């Protein structure tokens, strides 16, 4: 943003490629996918294995009941919102070399994020992960075999790639 609204295309920080089964994969894409899986497992562990995660899950079910136990629910919700925002920022940073850096790059992901959150279920990292991955795969396969359809998806979902939604859990 300090550079203005002009898009700044960036090269990937890891410019190497890997050959696998006759196909070439950029290492950076694989790294993004690995980070998404690590984040997903970390969130699962957080929600199921820590007191804070259990409080948040319980408060989502019955906020007043948890409040009656003397827990300051709003504080935990604030922490979760900040955690979600930080993960969104991480997704944006990782997406920057794939796309280009400009102030409006988040808008195009927003509708996709709503769509995959709605399909996966709110407060369910596993459902969100699966829905994000399947949505990304549908878009990638459509782009591969039916480019006109991918263009249509690009118009309605603002044309984003497979791995990105999986990052923004």
């Amino acid at each position, binding site marked *: *943003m300090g550079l*203005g*609204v002009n*898009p*700044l*295309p*960036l*090269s*990937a*920080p*890891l410019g190497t490629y890997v050959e696998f089964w006759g196909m070439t994969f950029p290492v950076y894409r694989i790294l993004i996918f690995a980070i998404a899986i690590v984040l997903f497992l970390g969130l699962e562990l957080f929600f199921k294995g820590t007191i804070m995660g259990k409080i948040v899950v319980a408060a989502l079910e019955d*906020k007043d009941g948890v409040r009656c136990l003397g827990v300051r629910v*709003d504080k935990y*919700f*604030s922490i979760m*919102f*900040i955690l*979600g*925002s*930080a993960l*969104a*920022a*991480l997704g*944006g*940073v*990782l997406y920057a*070399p*794939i*796309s*280009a850096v*400009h*102030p*409006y*790059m*988040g*808008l195009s992901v*927003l509708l996709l994020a*709503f769509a995959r959150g709605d399909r996966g279920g*709110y407060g369910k990292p596993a459902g969100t992960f699966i829905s994000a991955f399947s949505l990304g795969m549908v878009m990638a396969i459509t*782009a591969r075999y039916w*480019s006109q359809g*991918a*263009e249509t998806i*690009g118009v309605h979902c603002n*044309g*984003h*790639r497979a791995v990105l939604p999986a990052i923004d859990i």
Partner: protein
Amino acid sequence: MLLTDFLRIFHRRDPLFHFHRALPDLRNHARRQLCPYPDLQHRRLCSNHLHPLDERKFYPAAILAILAVIPVSYVIERYVIRRLYGESLDYTFIATFAITLMGVDTIKWVWG
């Protein structure tokens, strides 16, 4: 009259002539305009002038971006989202979208 007609014809051809001469410039302009959109066709167009990324700057920038989001998200949660916890989830979505649009409009207002 004939002279006038000829002049009109030449005047009509003139913009076309300039248009054909300006085609390379227009193509470069389109290439610059298409760069932010990352579908395959456009990526191929703008792959020629990618800004080389310094890894030493990328990772601190990533950490800085995540840290910079924390106070902003706290303010948004404290003063906007928290008021909507008792309401339907749709209101939270609408509020999130509204904040995003306000941010984008602020960027447009400041940087054009």
